[in-house]
């Protein structure tokens, strides 16, 4: 099973003059972490949207967990996404008025698949994930998300992406709001957790200093518009 397999993906934003994405092939193995770097505006976020099935992609181009993203539609696609993909954004990942632990558990409320895979006691799993990511203090876990520091929030988001062992985690510059030390620590933790859980990680950023934490590094510009 491949968590992610892209073949001949062409995508153009409606109304755009040129194709935003022209990707020959890209695939990820279970537990593999891939760092995709490229300058601002080159289409990294667009690629993640395509993989997550947020934008309409042609049939057969993207397979997540061996399922054709382009062939799933509507609500089924939302369910498919939460079943197989965890996502981390740049900032504001959390519902501000839910506690950290409740934010982590969100995928389990929307996906039976993730809930089952989170074990008998999803809340315990969530606490374990949080403590592994450096948020062991139980008072932190029950705090409303908007009372956490940005670095803490990103770690909560990482725990949420990890819970229930999805096949693939898409991370769109989750470290851009963090300082150097926090950044390195965050990426390191995330990559390690993914490897342990057997979850593939696709991490995009313009910041090449993060390269050393990943199994594989790919230049988006080289990938896009040619073969990878």
């Amino acid at each position: 099973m491949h968590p992610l397999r892209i073949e001949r993906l062409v995508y153009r934003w409606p109304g755009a003059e040129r194709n935003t994405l022209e990707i020959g092939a890209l695939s990820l193995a279970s537990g593999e972490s891939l760092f995709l770097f490229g300058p601002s505006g080159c289409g990294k976020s667009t690629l993640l949207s395509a993989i997550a099935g947020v934008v309409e992609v042609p049939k057969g181009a993207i397979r997540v967990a061996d399922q054709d993203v382009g062939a799933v539609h509507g609500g089924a696609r939302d369910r498919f996404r939460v079943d197989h993909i965890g996502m981390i954004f740049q900032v504001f990942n959390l519902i501000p008025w839910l506690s950290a632990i409740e934010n982590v558990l969100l995928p389990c409320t929307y996906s039976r698949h993730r809930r089952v895979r989170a074990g008998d006691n999803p809340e315990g799993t969530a606490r374990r994930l949080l403590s592994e990511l450096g948020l062991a203090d139980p008072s932190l876990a029950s705090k409303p998300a908007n009372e956490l520091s940005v670095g803490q929030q990103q770690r909560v988001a990482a725990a949420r992406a990890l819970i229930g062992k999805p096949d693939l985690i898409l991370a769109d510059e989750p470290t851009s709001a963090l300082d150097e030390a926090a950044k390195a620590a965050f990426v390191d933790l995330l990559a390690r957790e993914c490897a342990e859980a057997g979850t593939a990680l696709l991490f995009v950023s313009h910041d090449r200093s993060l390269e050393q934490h990943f199994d594989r590094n790919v230049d988006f510009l080289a990938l896009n518009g040619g073969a990878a």
Partner: protein
Amino acid sequence: MLGFSLRSLWNRRFVAGLTVLAISLSVALILGVERLRDGARDSFANSASGIDLIVAPRGNSVQILMATVFGVGGTGTGMTWESFEWLAGRPEVAWAVPIQMGDNHRGYPVIGTDASYFEHFRHSGGQSLSLAAGTFYTGDGADAAVIGAEVAARFGYAPGTVIVNAHGSGEVSFDLHDDAPFTISGVLAPTGTAVDRMVFVTLEGFDSLHAQEDAPLADPLDPAAMPADGHGEDDAHDDHIAHDDHDAHDDHEEHEDHEDHGDPEGTEAGHGHEPDRINAVYVGLIDRTSVLGLQRAVNERPSDALSAVLPAVALAELWGITGTAERAMRLMAWAVTFAGMIGMVVMLSASLETRRREFAILRSVGATPTRIFALIVTEAAILSAVGLFLGLVLLTLATFVTDPILSARFGLRLGLNAFGARELATLSIIFCAGLLASLIPAVRVYRMTLADGLSVRL
């Protein structure tokens, strides 16, 4: 889903609270207006049931009805006993009950009548009066009093209690007849009508109040002494007619009045005592179809200026008077509800922009746009439901507080458990309107989440 919506609303509890308050106030208003209207109509209709005709000194029929049946306001006292006897003797009349009014007991109207009142009065669809304790007027007791359930409950009276009445129908009266006490012989079972707050005394007893009081002043040649005959009712409200007529007729009747009290026959029950002047007569007919004929006969009686009032007609007239105000109130209540709904739509819509990120996050963890649509509708449903519930609570509290006042002042009861099918329908309409109104923001959210996808950036 419900829990999530609740949490989300709790996060915005200030605005949500205001919205709920607006809805609950409008609900309380709508239901309150309806209950007031129904309460008025029911208690009026119940109180007047069984009486075919009310005969009283000439006056406005609504006023006569209000005064006689509800003890609100007054009628003239100018009806002579001869007229009563004439009326009672008419072939089409099955029974006639004389009524005297104008006194109060601690704010509750005192009615002078004879035992036939208890026999013939009907309420709430034909039920006759029954006793909760004691007896109706006993044989020789001119000082006997029968009291309504509310009076008994309010002051803790029981058979045997001695009470003192005051002149005038005002709530506060300093002019107590403490020289003419009554002994309670019976307490009526609750009827839910104005009878509950009435104090009934014998005709003789009613007259004796005035006799004893008027006696030292009874000089018909001294106009200064005469109007002071106990009308310490400057505080009284709408009984001007009572004033006028009373003053006008007292003039030449008082001497005979006093002689009557010396009459030993007056101790008999029934019509034994013949008062000089009465305020009204309740009439029951053998055959109801004769009512118009009798009404004409009463109106045309030359010796006495009388009116014969058909309770149902007077009620209809009353509703005609109040109808416009009723409609205006109802319209206003619905307008307030409409405003409440707009408030909710504004609240939900205003929050959408700031919650865009929230929705994007939810979608990224698997919530479908439909689910987010449902989230908004659920929030509206919660707001509406809580608003409705709070409105009912508010109304119940308001009823609880105002019921004694309304009941004491106007003899109408809202009824604490008057939650009926029509109210349920009204509530459902408001609830559905709330859900419908929430579709506006919900559709916007639906579109927004589809367009934004997961890529909302701030």
